[in-house]
């Protein structure tokens, strides 16, 4: 097998639970997916479906009372494949990977920078922490790191980079702030970029610019990106492969065209139906997914989607369907397509 076919990141049966006073919340409940080198993977799902928690688990940034209870996260480094779950969250190797090899673009660029440190200062700090990714044989100096920061600002399309590195985040507009955040994420030449709804907090025009920038940078550096969003339109623009999540489980995954044109899982179909179309009839109510997202303490037994599913069968409330290949390129966890259930 060639190395190209081997995944960069491989998540297997990941489970994350939060122990709260009210009870146990299983935020991620047996999620599996792969990210290939240089691939843009889109992860879609409603709010609270475990997208962000999964991403934090990859970076080992789950705060108490959350805990990874089961599963493996294999990440391919230069030195070989490591299981991130086995690494100590505050240990040296994990900190080396974090920011160095896997970088995060957070949701809110407003609050993601410290307001009392200049943005340049915070990026310089990241570069100095992973100085070997720029200069393997010696430590970079502060002024070298500053020069790199200026270059990064220019790369992400921030004008007057020499002056802008000395500004505070609250002096920048939303778009510039997100560009600065992208510059920080790219500052150590990561192999994998996790973009956690990077455009939800900014206006639509700026959003289009930021997406174009990310596509451009992805093509230039061939960085793999996990792109998390609840916006299917953004997924269609950005991703080549899509993972659809619901209540902490993967419902369906496959290449972007197949997911959009031939969705297998009833949840994916329902999601796609709820997108307004330019060519649809006007003054007709947009189809919605019936029912509401269950409260996290009351997960339905069996398939998590069965209480809202239009095609629900008797078996759906008893057994949990496995994620199995369906057709040539997709995988779905639904008894409409196969009989395989998870072991109880």
């Amino acid at each position, binding site marked *: 097998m060639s190395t190209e076919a081997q995944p960069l990141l491989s998540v297997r049966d990941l489970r994350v639970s939060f122990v709260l006073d009210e009870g146990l919340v299983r935020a991620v409940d047996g999620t599996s997916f792969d990210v290939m080198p240089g691939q843009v993977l889109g992860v879609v799902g409603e709010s609270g479906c475990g997208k962000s928690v999964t991403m934090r688990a990859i970076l080992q*940034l789950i705060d108490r009372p959350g805990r990874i209870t089961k599963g493996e996260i294999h990440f391919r480094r230069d030195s070989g494949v490591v299981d991130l779950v086995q690494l100590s969250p505050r240990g040296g190797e994990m900190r080396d990977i974090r920011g160095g090899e896997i970088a995060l673009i957070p949701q809110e660029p407003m609050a993601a920078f410290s307001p*009392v*440190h200049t943005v340049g200062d915070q990026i310089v*700090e990241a570069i100095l*922490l992973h100085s070997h990714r720029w200069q393997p044989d010696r430590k970079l100096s502060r002024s070298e790191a500053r020069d790199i920061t200026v270059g990064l600002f220019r790369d992400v399309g921030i004008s007057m980079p020499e002056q802008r590195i000395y500004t505070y985040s*609250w002096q920048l507009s939303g778009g510039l702030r997100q560009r600065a955040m992208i510059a920080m994420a790219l500052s150590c030449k990561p192999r994998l970029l996790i973009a956690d709804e990077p455009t939800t907090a900014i206006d639509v025009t700026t959003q289009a610019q930021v997406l174009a920038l990310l596509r451009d940078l992805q093509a230039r550096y061939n960085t793999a990106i996990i792109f998390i969003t609840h916006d299917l339109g953004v997924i269609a623009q950005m991703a080549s492969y899509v993972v659809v999540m619901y209540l902490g489980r993967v419902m369906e995954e496959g290449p972007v065209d197949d997911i959009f044109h031939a969705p297998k899982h009833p949840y994916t179909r329902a999601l796609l139906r709820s997108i307004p179309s330019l060519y649809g009839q006007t003054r007709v109510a947009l189809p919605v997914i019936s029912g509401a997202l269950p409260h996290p303490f009351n997960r339905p037994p069996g398939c998590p989607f069965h209480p809202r599913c239009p095609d629900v069968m008797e078996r759906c409330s008893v057994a949990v369907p496995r994620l199995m290949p369906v057709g040539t390129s997709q995988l779905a966890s639904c008894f409409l397509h196969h009989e395989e259930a998870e072991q109880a």
Partner: protein
Amino acid sequence: MTRYILQRLALLPLLMVIYSFVIFVIIQAPPGDFLTAYVATLASSGSSISQEQIEAWRAQYGLDQPMIVQYWLWVKHLVHGNFGLSLEYQRPNADLIGEQIGLTLALALFSFFLTWAIAIPAGIYSATHPRSIGDHILTVVNYVGVATPNFMLALILMWVAFAYFDLSVTGLYSPEYADAPWSWGKFLDLMAHLWLPALVLGIAGTARLSRIMRANLLDELNKPYVVTARAKGMKEWRLVLRYPVRLAFNPLISTIGWYLPMLFSGSLIVATVMNLPNIGPLLLRALVNQDMYLAGGILLIYSFLTIVGTLLSDILLALVDPRIRVGS
């Protein structure tokens, strides 16, 4: 920034005029005057004094004038740096205050630094280890510290030191150094005596400060920039000190200003109980004996420190927080 400071400084004389008037009204308020109190003291010891003599003194000190005239005379002298004469000690008030101010400052500053040196690390520990055993212990200690009146604590500590360790911890010097000129030995002796009153004075402030630090830091630790810093791969303790602690500190900086006058005035009861030679007992005695110009002088210094302290903390806050510095 410079303009802002100048504006605030320009306001200072006006505030001092208002404060001085309020202070004068208050020290004038009790019925009678110094001479009434003096006559009462004499009477209780069996001696007496002729009514003419009293009236003569009253005229000499201007106590027979209307209040506003007395105030005007007082302020006129204050402007020339003259704090007047203590009626009781028959010495210039400036000298009386001057003799005590060195030790008062030493005690206050020592107590202030002790407070911060204990409270900040304790608050950081509590916030970074919430609901741990250490956090619970610190919480209990803090509540006890806030709830215990400091003069009570002073009495208990003095009793414990005396009863179990045969130590006399009142005063700031051992008897052999009390009237000795300054020397290295006297300094060491002072240091050996200073920590206990400083601790007593600072304990409630320490407990309160450490609770505030804990609450501020807990808030900051949940902010997204902490996640960003973790995602960079920073070491946890470095990250905590560099980002959230730095931000949790800002509200505390605005309280620094209140601490200086608070430590001066807060020391009144404790200093009397522990027999410390600072301004506290001097003020108490001046108030009891209606030695009004001495009391007024001391209160005026307190007010001045309050204004300067507030200004100082505002300037400090602007220096450390770019949102205030750049914004204004």
